[in-house]
């Protein structure tokens, strides 16, 4: 009796497997940038893209597998072989992922599609190793200074001179009312924190300087550049040498220390991550923060800040007139385990998301859907930093943004007009690892009034050199 049942079970199972095999011949493409289920607007949008794609390409099946890249989670996932066919990461990551064999060379596909030459060359460079390209850029960002206009108004720094109901961060003649040098930044921050304390009895940080999860080092490298530092240099023999402790970098760290202990205008916490800047800014507990231009909408979508109460301005100039905007971005990369057919499908799907250089009926309608969804969520529609440079694409993006723009661009223009001249890609080697060392220097300066920036940077410089840069072949 028992044996019979088992036998029957097994045969039923076999039949299922065989039938299942015949039925499921579609090529599956898993999409890592698929939104989390609770982002209902976005899920709807992706489902629409999926529907259109699958109708036009019946061989394929699109599967959403939401994955947000973090340095701590990617390796375990890749190791378990379950990384999606295509996923998003940051421009600091490609070299590491390529070296470990987790991502696929797509040079031939790009050339066949004629996308190779349309790609922004700086971004392509970041995705290239040994002449092979491993990804497709989604968009770029530059670091700048995000400002909570309401706080600025409360302390009397700005007003709404044109009466359009939106506070103005620039004067009628276009001159800035925001800090443009590090000295001004310090004065403004101090003024805001003091005034808020003395007149309103509120704890408001003048400025947010991040210090944790490698975000501190990431932003600090921009500060150091503006003070005139170069963090990695090639020596005479052509070897990369860490240069975290140049006098300029030390000066930058001294400035951070000054902001904390003399100006007393930073938040109490010394372990701030990227989530914190928009938490502080969005809830009015900070006036300014360094941030990436691709994250301007964060305080709005997460903390219900009014999109007209935020401004985004260029990074301040350093004492010797250096001014850079750290330029990074988000690429799509492809699992090394994916088949050629899957890669083709994934690349094709990018067109249906409006993320390819192709200008077609479908890509135009996808871009439009993307902007409409963003607008519905109350996000500001701002000029994007485009990953493609072909004329028809750029023209299309221009028209679209003209149609959809929903904020007063005057509060953002200075950033976008200067970006192209001052943008500078991240340091070339082991950027995340370098950020971690810088993080700890910053944390030390923020927690210890007597910390010695020079000694800290020197010891971290040595560790970074011996632990990482010396490994470069």
């Amino acid at each position: 009796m028992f044996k019979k049942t088992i036998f029957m079970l097994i045969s039923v199972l076999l039949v299922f497997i065989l039938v299942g095999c015949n039925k499921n011949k579609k090529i599956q493409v898993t999409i890592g940038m698929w939104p989390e289920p609770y982002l209902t607007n976005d899920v709807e949008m992706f489902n629409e893209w999926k529907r259109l794609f699958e109708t036009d390409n019946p061989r394929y099946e699109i599967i959403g597998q939401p994955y947000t890249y973090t340095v701590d989670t990617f390796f375990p996932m890749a190791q378990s072989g379950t990384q999606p066919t295509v996923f998003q990461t940051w421009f600091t990551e490609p070299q590491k992922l390529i070296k470990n064999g987790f991502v696929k060379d797509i040079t031939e596909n790009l050339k066949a599609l004629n996308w190779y030459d349309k790609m922004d060359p700086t971004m392509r460079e970041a995705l290239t190793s040994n002449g092979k390209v491993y990804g497709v850029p989604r968009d770029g960002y530059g670091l700048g200074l995000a400002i909570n206009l309401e706080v600025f108004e409360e302390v009397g720094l700005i007003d709404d001179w044109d009466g359009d109901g939106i506070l103005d961060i620039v004067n009628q003649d276009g001159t800035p009312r925001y800090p443009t040098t590090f000295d001004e930044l310090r004065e403004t921050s101090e003024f805001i924190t003091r005034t808020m304390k003395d007149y309103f009895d509120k704890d408001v940080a003048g400025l947010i300087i991040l210090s944790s999860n490698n975000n501190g080092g990431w932003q600090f490298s921009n500060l150091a550049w503006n003070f005139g530092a170069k963090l990695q240099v090639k020596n005479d023999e052509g070897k990369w040498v860490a240069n975290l402790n140049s006098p300029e970098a030390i000066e930058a760290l001294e400035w951070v220390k000054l902001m904390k202990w003399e100006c007393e205008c930073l938040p109490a916490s010394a372990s701030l991550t990227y989530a914190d800047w928009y938490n502080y800014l969005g809830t009015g507990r900070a006036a300014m923060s360094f941030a990436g231009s691709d994250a301007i909408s964060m305080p709005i979508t997460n903390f219900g800040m009014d999109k007209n109460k935020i401004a985004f301005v260029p990074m301040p100039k350093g004492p010797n007139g250096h001014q850079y905007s750290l330029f990074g971005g988000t690429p799509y990369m492809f699992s090394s385990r994916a088949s050629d057919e899957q890669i083709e499908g994934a690349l094709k799907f990018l067109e249906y998301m409006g993320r390819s250089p192709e200008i077609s009926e479908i890509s135009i309608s996808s871009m439009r859907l993307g902007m409409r969804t963003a607008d519905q969520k109350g996000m500001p529609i701002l000029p994007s930093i485009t990953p493609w440079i072909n004329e028809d694409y750029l023209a299309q993006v221009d028209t679209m943004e003209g149609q959809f723009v929903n904020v007063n661009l005057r509060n953002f223009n200075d950033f976008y007009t200067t970006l192209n001249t001052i943008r500078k890609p991240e340091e070339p080697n082991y950027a995340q690892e370098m950020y971690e060392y810088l993080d700890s220097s910053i944390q030390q300066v923020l927690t210890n009034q007597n910390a010695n920036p020079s000694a800290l940077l020197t010891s971290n410089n040595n560790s970074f050199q011996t632990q990482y840069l010396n490994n470069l072949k």
Partner: protein
Amino acid sequence: MKQKMTSMIKKNLGGWLIMLPSIFLFLFFIWIPLFSNVSLSFYDTVGYTKETFVGLEKYEAVLTDPLFTKALLNTLLYTFWSVVIGFLVPIILAIILSEVVHLKGLFRTGIYFPNIVPGLATVIMWTFLMSPESGGVLNSLLSLFKIEPQRWLDSPTMVIPLIVITMTWKGFGATTLIYLATIQSIDSVYYEAARVEGASVWQRIRHVTIPNLSPLIRMLFILQIISVFQVFYEPLVMTSGGPNNASISLLQLVHRYVFRYGDASKAAALGVIVASMLFILTFVYLKLSKNADNT
């Protein structure tokens, strides 16, 4: 002779067959990974594939990493603070609890309560409570007593004791109940005798309670040291090792090597070092507990 063999096989085969599945699980989940760590640690690796034999190079890389020294020192500090903060509390509470007659059930339940709060929830919750903001919970409570806001986990000197406090909060209930059970099993005849001799309360504790507890105290003391030596997810979640690596632990460093930088063999080398330290501690424990059993 042959009969003897078959009877021996017959006698043992059943037992071995019963053990086999479980042994297989122990091998798969514990021993095989341990041995692959040992062998990985001598190679250069890409993912988990061995590339070239490098001898002790990885061990050298670990030992010269300033983070290793830092993590080792921190781990010792965790152990030290856990003894200072977490060791006496359960003993004292157990003695008090054994003496009290009112609301005994409530106290016992309440003291054990934190043990059932999931570890991840515990550490995130305490991170919130110890926010360095002036609006943070503990800082707000302090301000009631006109005490300045503290920096809590942001302070390099306070961070380890505070993480230890969180761990103690989570775990002290179970230890207290274990002590309590032993205290309650002490025959009241001993106390009676002490009372007759006119022993003070302190003397009764010192000469009756403590001696009866001491084998247990010794055992739990070493178990505690071994378990705190393995501190891992608390600093990972609460501070990710900061500020300035002031709270990074040895096992967290293993995790960082393997899952953040994907260096499986360096992680393996550090793993072997940590495991050796734990084996030594365990050996000491087993020796001591044997001695305790014999007395």
